[in-house]
């Protein structure tokens, strides 16, 4: 007890000035928290969220086809559980136990708080259970799995995306749902996932070109990367919406949703290229020379020796770029697309919910913040795991 007291005193009241700062901060914090709680309990009207939760999640996606989205969610949960299990193995260390508990609580309580129908509530619980079962089963079997499977697992993500898009947009045998009907979180995720998947290979290619010995490739990459990095995203989105129709042969111009997705991709690729380039620069020259001495050709040298090490180094900044990209999808609302923020603004324009800005924006902010924080925490766990793996640079 006295030890705690002494630590507190040293940390908070070491000298008069420190004490003054502490007291002022405590007063401010207390006042702020009290005002926030008072607002959330007494003044805020949360009906705006309850009444529009489906609209915010899906936009105007047609009612009879919503079962397809549940299927997509089941696919996503399976893929996440699989990846989680493969990364962590059979045990359930403390972070995993905390995540699993938080996930189950979220799936149980959030639909309850939003007043969803019982059927939907049970579906969310079933999805959480599916994810945890995959985590458990795959984690349990991991030691017995062949090594090539462990190397190939990231490939399930593009596969899940393709399957998911086929379900969302419709494919032969399913009724097509045009992109104009997608909205809310669904549209945000479709755009972000497309850009995540496409900007990565493009960025790696650009980074390799920028470090290449061939002047044409190098200068092409430099000009592209610097031009894109010099322009604000909103002007590029604007350019995509207004000029792509002029640049492509008549009638070939893609839908507004896909135009924006391509602009996001091409924009993010320039930043990913810079992150990868920093990783490439960190690979010692001796690695390349050794690979050449072993008789690998330049392509094999890059693919088998340089890139695996470079990507490992670049991982933190790559995830940082992915997080930024996710946040950047909010800009789509400025060019008139109905992403999560765009849908929220259309809800706020409804006279029935006029002036409910604070509630809606707070919920959106919490949503974005938790997604980004989860991504950052996940990347840190992955980083730690990769650091423990034997790597070529360590003796």
């Amino acid at each position, binding site marked *: 007890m006295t030890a705690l007291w002494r630590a507190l005193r040293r940390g908070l009241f070491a000298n008069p000035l420190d004490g003054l700062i502490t007291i002022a901060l405590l007063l401010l914090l207390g006042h702020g928290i009290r005002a926030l709680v008072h607002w959330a309990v007494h003044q805020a009207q949360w009906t705006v969220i309850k009444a529009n939760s489906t609209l915010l999640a899906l936009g105007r996606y047609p009612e009879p086809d919503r079962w397809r989205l549940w299927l997509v969610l089941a696919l996503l949960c399976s893929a996440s559980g699989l990846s989680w299990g493969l990364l962590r193995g059979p045990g359930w260390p403390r972070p995993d136990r905390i995540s699993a508990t938080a996930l189950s609580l979220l799936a149980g309580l959030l639909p309850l708080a939003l007043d969803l129908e019982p059927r939907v509530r049970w579906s969310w619980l079933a999805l959480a259970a599916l994810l945890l079962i995959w985590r458990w089963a795959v984690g349990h079997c991991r030691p017995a799995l062949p090594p090539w499977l462990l190397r190939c697992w990231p490939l399930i993500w593009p596969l899940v995306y393709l399957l998911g898009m086929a379900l969302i947009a419709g494919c032969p045998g399913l009724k097509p749902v045009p992109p104009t009907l997608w909205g809310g979180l669904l549209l945000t995720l479709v755009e972000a996932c497309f850009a995540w998947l496409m900007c990565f290979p493009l960025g790696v290619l650009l980074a390799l070109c920028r470090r290449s010995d061939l002047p044409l490739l190098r200068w092409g990459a430099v000009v592209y990367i610097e031009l894109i990095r010099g322009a604000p995203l909103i002007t590029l989105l604007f350019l995509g919406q207004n000029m792509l129709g002029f640049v492509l042969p008549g009638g070939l111009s893609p839908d507004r949703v896909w135009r924006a997705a391509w602009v996001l991709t091409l924009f993010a690729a320039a930043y990913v290229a810079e992150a990868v380039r920093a990783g490439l620069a960190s690979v010692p020259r001796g690695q390349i020379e050794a690979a050449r001495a072993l008789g690998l050709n330049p392509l094999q040298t890059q693919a088998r020796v340089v890139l695996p090490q470079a990507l490992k180094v670049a991982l933190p900044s790559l995830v940082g770029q992915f997080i930024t990209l996710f946040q950047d999808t909010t800009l789509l609302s400025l060019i008139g697309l109905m992403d999560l*923020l765009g849908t929220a603004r259309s809800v706020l324009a409804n006279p029935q919910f006029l002036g409910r800005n604070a509630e809606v924006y707070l919920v959106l902010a919490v949503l*974005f913040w938790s997604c980004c924080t989860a991504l950052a925490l996940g990347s840190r766990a992955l980083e730690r795991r990769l650091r423990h793996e034997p790597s070529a640079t360590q003796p």
Partner: protein
Amino acid sequence: MGAPVPWWRHRRLLPWLVQGVAGLGLLVLTAAVVTNLVRNLSHAGMLLSWRWLGTPAGFDLGESLIPFDASKPYWLALVSGLLNTLRVVAAGLVGSTLVGTAVGVASFSSNILLQRLARLYVALIRNSPLLMQLLFWYFIVFLSLPADQAAIQLPGLVLCRSGLYLIQPHLHLGQWQAHLQLSIEFMALFTGLVIYSGAFIAEVVRGGIASVPQGQWEAARALGLKPPQILRTIVLPQALRVIVPGLNNQYISLAKNSSLALACGYSDLYSVAETSLNQTGRAVEVVLLVLGSYLLIDLLISALMNGLNAFVQIKER
């Protein structure tokens, strides 16, 4: 020995082949883009022309540093937008540097509460989208300020829904007037940019201070210097060498982020350009002008920061 190497994999020839193919691809792409552009534009009767810049704009701006009204030409509207952008960027650079430095230094404070709050601020701000923050500042904070009659009054400062009034504010016919008046649109954008960039700059500053070896602190303490003195005379000058290159990136992204002014109704370059495009349909010209202006602003900031960088780096003797 194995089979002879095929002719196209010759050491001298291969690089030229690869570049030739890449160059040809680029050339074909550019040619296709340009021909399509010219054909589609001439089809729409919109071939490149700058004459529309001289015609009256027909729209008014929320605020302008130069006299402007709807009868003035488009080019003046765009220049006014550019000046508005430069104004908020310049103010934002100063503000975010102050906030970032304060928070970056606070994260090394011996006061646990202050240190934790600094970290919390960075974590909260960096993980939520800037556009949402701008909407928050404009719609939730600044639009709910009291009206002129019930303004918040502090010595030398008046804040109400019509704006912020600095330096000798006084009521004149029921409206506040002062030597320096800032609209709430400007204030919302400014606050949003400062708080957002401040969090990123705080991380840069923290990294810079962390890069100064612990021995420097200990040596300074052994010499009997006080903590603020150590920071000012020993640590910060060394940390600046790491901080300045990082600041360059943050300043450029602040300038680019100012283009989100549209969200809080501030007439910056981008929002004026968008209005002009919607009225004239001159997509190519407007986009070229806007992209060129932002590139120029970036180059300007980079040039200034490179000068500063040369100044703070170690002089080799």
